[in-house]
């Protein structure tokens, strides 16, 4: 199992915000990972409550788009 690198303070704050925003959307975040890709911070949010289906993924895509356009946050939501 790879070692999880602790988040920087700033990253922690943004992560908190991501959790809060997803909660507001009715998603329960089971785990949140942060990655630094060439285009900035990316959050991988593992959520429960939405099945891995076409309809479910469409809903998740809409939430991801909204977070990107309104909050400038790149979040990849993964049903688990």
């Amino acid at each position, binding site marked *: *199992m*790879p070692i*999880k690198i602790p988040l920087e303070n700033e990253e922690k704050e943004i992560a908190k915000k991501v959790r809060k925003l997803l909660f507001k959307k009715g998603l329960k975040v089971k785990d949140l990972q*942060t990655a630094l890709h060439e285009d900035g911070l990316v959050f991988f949010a593992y959520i429960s409550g939405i099945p891995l289906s076409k309809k479910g*993924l469409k809903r998740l*895509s809409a939430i991801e788009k909204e977070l990107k356009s309104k909050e400038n946050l790149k979040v*990849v939501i993964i049903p688990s």
Partner: protein
Amino acid sequence: MTKGKHFLKIAKKLTVGDCEKLPTEALRRTIVNRIYYGVLHTVAEELEKIDKFKRKRETPKIHSIVIGRLKTICPSAGDWLEKLHELRKKADYDLNIPFKKEDLKTSLFLAELILKEVNLCLSKYRWKTKKRK
């Protein structure tokens, strides 16, 4: 000539094959990598058939070019391919972040969905352009 579907075949074989002795997480990352490139090249091949869209294989921009073009014809599939791209980047570069079972499961589902949706969208697109002519 190698085609996108060949990568998908390999990914499928790795998913269901006898790989118990291989390191699980590294295997998951490898499968997601092949799935992504399989889907990317399959989609690009399909796009090449319908218009003058040409891949510039030599540039790393192929990802954004294919995703961007796909979004104009088939927005949902474009969004899903972008998501799969993020998962592929995670699989290949973020070795310090756990790559979970859910990541593989989601990638497999996304691949299936993208290919189905692309087929549907492109047949509609072809029908529309034929009607216009």
